[in-house]
């Protein structure tokens, strides 16, 4: 079975500083996308960033960027200039088959003012 592992159940960071959330995955797909989702207390899963596996360049969306190491099957999320609104659960997800996603257990991120 394909798995996604997030080894950090909880992380905390000072406001305005940088934090990195780790994720490793296992997939048999040759061409795929990887995703980071944010889940605030409202429960809605919000797409933060996605990475196309065939692209060498790491994806960036404003303060969010990834470090994608395809050979190591590692997909970490870096949040720069952390803001109070970044506090949430963060889930890494990779595909299983053509459509469905497998999610990690999540990392709870706390921002300290």
């Amino acid at each position: 079975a394909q798995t996604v592992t997030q080894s950090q159940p909880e992380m905390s960071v000072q406001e305005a500083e940088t934090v990195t959330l780790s994720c490793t995955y296992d997939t048999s797909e040759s061409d795929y996308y990887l995703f980071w989702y944010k889940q605030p207390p409202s429960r809605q899963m919000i797409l933060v960033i996605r990475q196309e596996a065939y692209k060498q360049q790491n994806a960036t969306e404003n303060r969010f960027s990834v470090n994608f190491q395809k050979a190591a099957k590692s997909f970490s999320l870096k949040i720069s200039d952390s803001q109070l609104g970044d506090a949430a659960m963060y889930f890494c997800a990779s595909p299983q088959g053509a459509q469905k996603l497998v999610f990690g257990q999540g990392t709870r991120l706390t921002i300290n003012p």
Partner: protein
Amino acid sequence: GAGVSQSPRYKVAKRGQDVALRCDPISGHVSLFWYQQALGQGPEFLTYFQNEAQLDKSGLPSDRFFAERPEGSVSTLKIQRTQQEDSAVYLCASSFVTGAEGYTFGSGTRLTVV
């Protein structure tokens, strides 16, 4: 619609009761997914539709769980004879055919079985 809409937002059911959870996806989204999220866990796949066809139901935990999408838009997840272990948040997501742009999720239905 502008987003994926799920109702009800909260549902309390007595053990043994049947429940129906509704998902209204984004207009034009072909693919629709149901996930179950237990407290403190990541979402787990239940089932997937492409239009009205249920292409994958491998994640449904028992034959008490049934999903349908008869006209290829709104979907209903039905749970018969609810049990306490069914207590969870049920998330619906939709996407264009490939899902390459990522899936848009609703806010989920929190089901509590007492």
